[in-house]
């Protein structure tokens, strides 16, 4: 179909060159497309994405349970309440922890695996797929699987402890270990995604640079340190970006594991928002948390893009 049109066109142009050329890709046609094709996307996006954010800012000024219209204006008190909640700072700290673990454990792991698996050998593709698999599993399912693994009566942890003759701990039920347990699941679930990013980057790498270094007598580790890793910097920055954005959205995984508990010790920002705003229908308070989270996300995205991703 496409080819037929392409071939047919010049003949027509030759036949009626002047009026056709004048009409060209006309305004009438463009206008119809603009009227028909753009509004659905803009309408949906405005209605369900942009307006709610604006409304969150408006609702955050009220003490409101969601029924009727908001009338009880309390100014910035909701923000004050949020900032005075200990659980908010715990959640923020936990998001920081997730980012730290992503940078210190997940990223090096993903990069190492990518360097190993970007080369061709038997089983490389199968291993890549295996490592990527946790990423496509639903976070809810992952959380449930690990709440079994961590279970003090039935799980892996229980059987290891019993093997050494010790009384098994309930990792998810203790304020000291719950967040640690969540962090391990996060690494399990997301390292494969970052590995795939690096593999994609490695495969599109300019091989001639590596070849040139080899000819110049550089050793493998020198090539790695001075050629390959520097060429991967853009991808590393991207991977860090995703790790941070992902941490700020993390919710589904926490719910089946700990619901943010015990005693708010494993809340993330979003699970804190859910537990304190949504599940109790405290619209004003919850919206204030939402606005704070929004501000963090947007500030971060702009700063990061400006400072670290200027060239891309």
């Amino acid at each position: 179909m496409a080819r037929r049109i392409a071939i047919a066109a010049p003949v027509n142009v030759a036949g009626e060159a002047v009026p056709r050329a004048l009409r060209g890709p006309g305004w009438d046609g463009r206008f119809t497309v603009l009227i028909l094709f753009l509004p659905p996307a803009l309408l949906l996006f405005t209605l369900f994405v942009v307006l709610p954010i604006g409304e969150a800012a408006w609702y955050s000024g009220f003490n409101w349970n969601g029924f009727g219209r908001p009338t009880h204006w309390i100014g910035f008190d909701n923000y004050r309440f949020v900032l005075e909640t200990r659980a908010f700072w715990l959640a923020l700290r936990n998001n920081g922890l997730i980012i730290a673990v992503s940078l210190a454990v997940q990223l090096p792991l993903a990069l190492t695996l990518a360097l190993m698996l970007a080369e061709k050998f038997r089983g490389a593709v199968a291993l890549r797929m295996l490592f990527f698999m946790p990423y496509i599993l639903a976070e809810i399912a992952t959380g449930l699987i690990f709440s079994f693994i961590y279970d003090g009566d039935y799980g892996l942890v229980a059987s290891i402890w019993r093997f050494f003759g010790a009384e098994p701990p309930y990792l998810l039920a203790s304020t000291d270990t719950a967040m640690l347990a969540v962090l391990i699941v996060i690494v399990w679930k997301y390292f494969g995604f970052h590995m795939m990013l690096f593999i994609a980057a490695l495969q599109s790498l300019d091989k001639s640079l590596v070849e040139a270094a080899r000819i110049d007598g550089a050793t493998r580790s020198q090539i790695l340190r001075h050629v390959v890793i520097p060429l991967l910097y853009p991808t590393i920055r991207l991977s860090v970006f995703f790790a941070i954005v992902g941490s700020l959205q993390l919710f589904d995984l926490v719910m089946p594991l700990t619901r943010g508990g015990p005693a708010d010790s494993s809340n993330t920002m979003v699970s804190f928002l859910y537990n304190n705003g949504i599940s109790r229908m405290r619209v004003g308070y919850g919206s204030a948390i939402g606005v704070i989270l929004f501000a963090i996300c947007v500030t971060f995205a702009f700063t990061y893009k400006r400072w670290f991703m200027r060239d891309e």
Partner: protein
Amino acid sequence: MNSAETSRAPFDPAVLFKAAFLGIVAIFVLVPLLATLLGGFKSLGELRVNPFGLPSHWEWQNYADILFSGRYWQLLRNSLIISTLTVTLTLIVASMAAFTFAHVRFFGSSMLLSYLTLGLLFPAATAVLPLFIKVRDLGLLDTYFGVALPQVAFSLAMSVLLLRRFFKDIPYELLEAALVDGCSYIKFFRYVTLPLSRPILATVGTITFVNSWNAYLLPLVMLNTDALYPWPLGIMVYQGEYSSEWHLILAFITLTILPTIILFLLAQKHIVAGLTAGAVKG
């Protein structure tokens, strides 16, 4: 060069280290998955003493009970309806917008595109309370559309960007020739752009599907009736009911993640491409 290296490889200690490292990571990934699959074949008593080995007695009953219950199929049906709605609407709405941004020059085009890409900056969770009130005021609470429409809205930014990039690669001369030939923009879109763009449509469709199939927060907030629950909500309810009967819960988890794993094996190229493509130009 490369293959010569690999065939020499077994004598290199670095290769041994590499194999050991890959093996450990593979075990780290596999153990939870296998334990879940096998756990579903055990009785509760056996699960307690032998959580990770092969079952001594294969208990098919756990899986059979779930497969013959209406509940499992209802959850899958609900998930399928919501995901299909989301994917269909996203593909239609996003490809129309992407086409306009790619091929139609008009005043404010780049401004509107940046407006849409604002959606990439923050998660749906930030505005979920006002979103709930909006959906309620529209009368869509506790309906499939109440979940699907916000999901479409939130997937638009990424979808439009990916589609537009692909559409832009269709030569402009082709469009020009078609227009001169009396073909309208809409016909060109329908008969040229869309057929030529199957790979990217499949990719965008697959990402949207996986995201919607796995989604938890939006359905949790928008749905109240058990009969409408998609599987992530349903499985949480199930776990609440059978709290420590892990053999049943594990069987249930296995059966609910099975469709995802099958889809992944069938469409892995699209899934990997799609989920990492957003990365190339975020």
